[in-house]
């Protein structure tokens, strides 16, 4: 159990460092899409809520899990879709006039 926890901290630390490195290279131009994409990624809580909603441990856990699944799915689906919608608009050459 102790070793497992330490291992989890390793993963946390490495991912955080990696995140710092990658994200500090994102130019201000793309900060809004970045934020909306990382927000969609943080919808990964869905993975935890799926088990709570489907395992039928007890009615309360199921209800909480169901709400959590709904909330996290809004983030995942909405987040990736709107990021794509935004990024579609970023163009280099002058496009056609609207």
């Amino acid at each position: 159990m102790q070793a497992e926890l330490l291992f989890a901290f390793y993963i946390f630390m490495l991912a955080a460092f990696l995140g710092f490195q990658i994200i500090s290279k994102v130019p201000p131009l793309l900060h809004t899409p970045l934020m909306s994409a990382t927000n969609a990624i943080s919808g990964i809580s869905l993975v935890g809520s799926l088990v709570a909603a489907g395992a039928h441990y007890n009615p309360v856990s199921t209800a909480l899990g169901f709400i959590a699944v709904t909330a996290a799915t809004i983030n995942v689906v909405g987040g990736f879709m709107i990021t794509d919608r935004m990024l579609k608009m970023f163009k280099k050459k002058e496009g056609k006039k609207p």
Partner: protein
Amino acid sequence: MSTALIQLTYFFASALFILGLKDLGSPETARRGNLFAAAGMFLAIVGTLAHRDIISYEWIVTGMIIGSAIGAAMAIFMPMTAMPERIALSHAFGGLAAAFVGISEYYRHGAEMELLKTVPVGFEVIFGALTFTGSLMAFGKLSGYITQVPVTYKFQNQSNISLFAVTLALYVAWLFTPSYPVLFYIMLGLAFLIGVLMVLPIGGADMPVVICLLNSYAGLAASATGFVLSNNILIIAGSLDGASGLILSIMMSKAMNRSFTNVLFGAFGSVAETVPGAAASATGSVNEGTIDDAVTVLRNAQRVIVVPGYGMAVSQAQHALRELADLLDSDGVTVKYAIHPVAGRMPGHMNVLLAEANVAYDHIFDLEDINDEFSKTDAVIVIGANDVVNPAAKTNPSSPIYGMPVLNVEEARTVIVLKRSMSAGFAGIDNELFALPNTMMVFGDAKQTVTKMVQALKS
């Protein structure tokens, strides 16, 4: 066997998240990056559905259908100008999901929980809950349901800090006596309250920092969930999100010349405390120009720089602005856009709006790349920006924004300021730029003004 398979999907999902974020670093690859991340998420979800504890799918499917419908509707119909609100709202959903998973875990295991689990559960629940209410408050402020003016009262910082200390004490007490759920639920309630009180004193202009910070908290809550469930993908995705929010909030506070600790410990309102009063003192000597005056200046210009701010977003002037820039461009005028890091209500806010109006991103420049060019510029159009072009930040040590990096617009030959009225910016301070001899103020709604300028330029 099925556990190994789940772990394998998580492994690939993590790789896809990281690749996706890396691709988000350049506008050419960003769309692909977003697709990678989405594919990673899809893999992780499909993998999890095979989890052996899941015995029925009715609630999962219902939740996912409702969530997808709401999420998709928001993504399709929400106007780009409402992006800060949407982001704030989605942080609220993220916080809620994390908090509920934590509560569900505690409800299920109760007093049997070991310290190794209660530590992250408490962390997850506290961060999830305060992210939820804090983000709802931010949403309310951004969409105008709650006043954007900082709400302050006596001993605000002291009472907030005491509240936080009490919550922390409850948390520690509960860690040692997990058989007392009452401690846990009071702690949860206080965390919800902290979220509200934390954002209450924050003014509109400080929103970029708050949004980034809440982004970071939502990530940390997800990461804590990973510790609770011993789930690596949650730890990885959560810490990537946490790191991203943290970096952005550090960048934003730097751009406002506030130390990060100052921001972290809820002193957001402190700049705005020096607020109202002498806003109109500069009115006496400003040069007010008409639409025709402004157009004459632009006709005689070779180089023009546009400086957009939150006012452009409010009046939705970006399309008219782009039309104006097109006309100038066809007359051989070089038009560039200068974006201050904290222009608008979230990082990159102006870039998204200009992109929506079809402005090519290689015409858009960051503060440090363009600040030396103002002295060689014939005309600057300041549209709905105020504090980010205030020269007092460079010249007046007693100004609350002294030391904040600003755009050197006053170095240009003529500065055309489009503004609704003579009111002060969100920091509540006078802007001496408006009274400079080379400044021309054009009052009115930004969109209408720009549209009229386009018509005048055509004729």
